[in-house]
């Protein structure tokens, strides 16, 4: 859970338009934010992406990468939802869940 919040905070600061159109970074590098945290992110990035297949870092062009629309499922992500608090935390997203403020306050 910690990882996802730190990622979303980073997304906040990213200039997506610029990263996509005015850099030569590969899509994976943009997602993993390689530009800023070259070294330390490397290991983590591999963890993030290897659910279904391993991506060779240096030669991603050669790896058999399936053109598919379903993202591989992250078992960690699913595990979170076994927790009662987690289940309760999204109640405000449902019509019966009341106001966001009331729910979070």
């Amino acid at each position, binding site marked *: 859970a910690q990882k996802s919040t730190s990622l979303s905070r980073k*997304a906040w600061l990213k200039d997506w338009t610029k990263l*996509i*159109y005015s850099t030569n970074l590969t899509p994976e590098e943009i*997602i993993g934010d390689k530009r800023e945290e070259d070294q330390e992110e490397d290991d983590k990035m591999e963890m993030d992406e290897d659910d279904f297949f391993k991506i060779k870092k240096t030669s991603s062009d050669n790896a058999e990468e399936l053109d598919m629309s379903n993202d591989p499922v992250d078992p960690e992500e699913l595990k979170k939802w076994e927790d009662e608090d987690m289940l309760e*935390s999204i109640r405000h997203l*449902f019509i019966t869940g009341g106001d966001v403020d009331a729910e979070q306050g």
Partner: protein
Amino acid sequence: MAHTLVNFSGHQHLRHRLVLAILTGKHIRIDKIRSEDKNPGLRDFEISLLRLLEKITNGTIIEISVTGTSILLKPGIIFGGALQHDCPKSRSIGYFLEPIIMLAPFAKRPVQLTLKGITTDDHDLSADLLRTVTLPHLQLFGISNGLELRIKKRGAPPEGGGEVQFLCPIVKQLKTLNFVDPGKVKRIRGIAHAVRVNPQFSNRMIEASRSILNRYIPDIYLYSDVYKGDESGKSPGYALSLLAESTTSVIHCAEAVSEPGVAPEDIGLKATRQLLAEVNKGGCVDRKHQTLVLMFMVLGSEDVGRCRMGEPTPRTIQFLRDVQTFFGTSFKIVALPGCSQLLYSCYGTGYVNANRTLA
């Protein structure tokens, strides 16, 4: 008339590149298709996709090099009409239908395409999700009358044996999208199916799913979809597809497919937890449908289209770059304050269906 030639290398992102080429009429050359691989060149499903694109268009010229490592495609017009295609067992029909859905509204004649093969697997959108989630996305752009996907037979991997029919009307021009309010989830729907296994498996998945979902809202219907005999394909398999619809018609979906040695209850729970994860991510369009929605935003009428979505997937990033190569259109992507979602906006190209028969 001189035609622009667009060059790419590598086998990745083949589908959307071919779609972009056909929509813009630009010639496309792709080299180095698995040229370093032990088994170089195009795969059977990629060749099958090229054949399908050849069928749906008229006058398309496709040249494949002897080794299969490079292709040249000179697109003709999108013709449509009644078509039939046998998909290889290496990919499900979703792989083939996804690019066709982007092209079909711009055909000369309404598309009636029958596809045979695997209807549900874990790589591509299943027939159920395509029918209940993908097609409603087209309605946002004004494609609705006569839009239908019929699942005539189900086919689980590895042997398949399923059959679907896709009916798509033609349009003159797409509406501009303005989709920024995610709303709140008002109902949950689901389809459980089980073929060539104990039919109780459907109910077991549904029960497991309900054990989590019942707490949120009362409006939950999970159907057990029964296919018997010849309609149930050649291999055993089962799956649960779920969707959550919001007050503003946002649809989030999830699906889990049977795995050897895993109980139906666990498949049901897996699908359900994935659905909750999707709902939690929020936005108006999920990751699976990013490229479809962005594609139609580019093709929309000459006005600014907006859509709220999560972070782009690697596929989407490459798609955005390729869109710029073909159409010259770039998106403005800005973070929305206070959440992890982004607002994508672009000026539509005002794409007009020139293939459409007049009057």
